[in-house]
């Protein structure tokens, strides 16, 4: 099975500074791997198996070696992909890049909490079945068996290939690549391409989405107790009794 794993397709909140007036200043606007991206790589490797291939796909000036150091055999980077406020545009770029890779069986995307529309929109743009919220996946016949928790229920989804999976991390990355793997990653092939080469130059056009500004969230009406432990504990217990939850 050939799996494309999409990573580092959005900026990280860690690269932004929020000022007291709610304004946002990006100190590092480079796309970086999201918290669900390691789980996406793990799923892609499991699906590809020993006989398959994992292809990393990333956008803008992100580092393609991130997936190469984790087991991808080669990588594709769309150099002029916009960092879009419109998740549909991001998904369209990803879909165009996937089409440039021959014989793809599955696309695996980190099902980002910040941008939960992207994985689903990649599937829609490709016209492939898409399931998101997935925590593990394995090959099953001509398709994929994907597991998703849903409340009291565990869903096992059987999805025909080609398909798109949105994968959610259940924990932090178990093991980051060592120096040997990082050095080996730099020797693996990276294909750089552009929106024009992918046949989608229109995706570089200004979006219909414009940012008007940012502000701090409305303050929650949190009642905060400070002081001696016995006094704050007494105040909290009294408040909870008044709420009727004790």
């Amino acid at each position, binding site marked *: 099975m050939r799996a494309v794993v999409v990573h580092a397709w959005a900026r990280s909140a860690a690269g932004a500074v*929020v000022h007291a007036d709610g304004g946002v200043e990006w100190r590092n606007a480079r796309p970086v791997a999201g918290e669900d991206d390691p789980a996406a790589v793990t799923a892609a490797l499991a699906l590809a198996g020993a006989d398959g291939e994992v292809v990393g796909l990333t956008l803008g000036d992100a580092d393609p070696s991130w997936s190469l150091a984790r087991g991808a055999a080669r990588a594709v980077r769309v150099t002029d992909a916009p960092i879009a406020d419109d998740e549909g545009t991001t998904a369209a770029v990803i879909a165009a890049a996937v089409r440039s890779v021959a014989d793809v069986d599955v696309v695996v995307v980190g099902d980002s909490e910040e941008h939960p529309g992207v994985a*689903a929109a990649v599937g829609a743009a490709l016209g492939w079945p898409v399931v998101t*919220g997935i925590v593990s996946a394995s090959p099953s016949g001509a398709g994929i068996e994907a597991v998703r928790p849903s409340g009291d229920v565990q869903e096992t989804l059987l999805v025909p290939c080609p398909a798109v999976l949105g994968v959610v991390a259940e924990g932090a990355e178990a093991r980051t690549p060592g120096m040997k793997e990082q050095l080996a990653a730099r020797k693996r092939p990276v294909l750089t391409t552009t929106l024009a080469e992918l046949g989608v130059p229109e995706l570089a056009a200004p979006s219909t989405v414009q940012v008007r500004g940012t502000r701090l969230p409305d303050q929650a009406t*949190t009642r905060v*107790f*400070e002081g001696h432990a016995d006094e704050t504990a007494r105040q909290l217990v009294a408040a909870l009794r008044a709420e009727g939850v004790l």
Partner: protein
Amino acid sequence: MTVDTWLLAAAGAHLDGAVAAARTLGGRVTVVAVGPHALAEAAATAAPDEVRWVETPDGEPAEAWAAAVGAEVAAAAPRVVLSPADPASRALLAAAAVPLGAALVSRVLALRAEDDALVVDRVSLGGAVVETLAVSGPLAAVLDDRDGTTAAAPPAPVTAWTPAAAPAAVQVKREPAPGAAAGVRDAARVVSVGRGLRSKDDLAVVEPLLAALGAELGCSMPMADDLGWVPKERYVGRSGQHIAPRLYLALGISGMPQHMEGVRDAKVVAAVNSDPAAPIFRTADYGVVGDLYEVVPALVRALGAPPA
């Protein structure tokens, strides 16, 4: 400007809030409910103008209908399509957004129409800010799930709806989740521990509080994953348990969005943290700034004392 809105839903939670968000645009609200009849009934009680029900037989997830439903919705050329944030609803929304050529925006809190633009407030940077966007064309929005007030209007009519295209060959098997029997899921009170706990042995510090409250133990992700101090089925958060206790008390948990998503439906959230700047003090109902090793025994004493 009034704007007609279609709401695509595969799960029943938070539909009252979703319909309320759609109502702010002033136009007709149509819900497409893809799932069992109970889902259509839940959608109807949120009082949109109509509910179109796409029945899914056992073993067929809503995602199987995504392309078929999306094509039909796009053919109606609505200016706005919305969905809750659950995975299957997002698949329905995206399947409509692409043929519509709609901008796709997520974690949306509120919408309004201003002149020819749609103005959207959404959660950004993990909740650190609210971002305001102006959208000049069609819009597909994943709503940040919020409860609304129960609609006072009578339930909307429900009509069965069969899209022209056939469903995709996606199947689903459902079984009880591993650990579903663990008490944390259905407990009325849950006390969770996070990195503020210094060692696994210190779970003993929390046990008297669990007993005093009649609460189940939960935890943040690192406690179950990196550290392994608490069984994984007790992990509360985005990829763990989503719970709705009457009381959720977080001890030494910073309150990152990934964790708080798991307790969004709790009635009351309280937190104990030594860091007054901890994000949880921006979202909890009650907070105590203090060392949990001092506050927890004090809570046990306070719970044992008669009400003032």
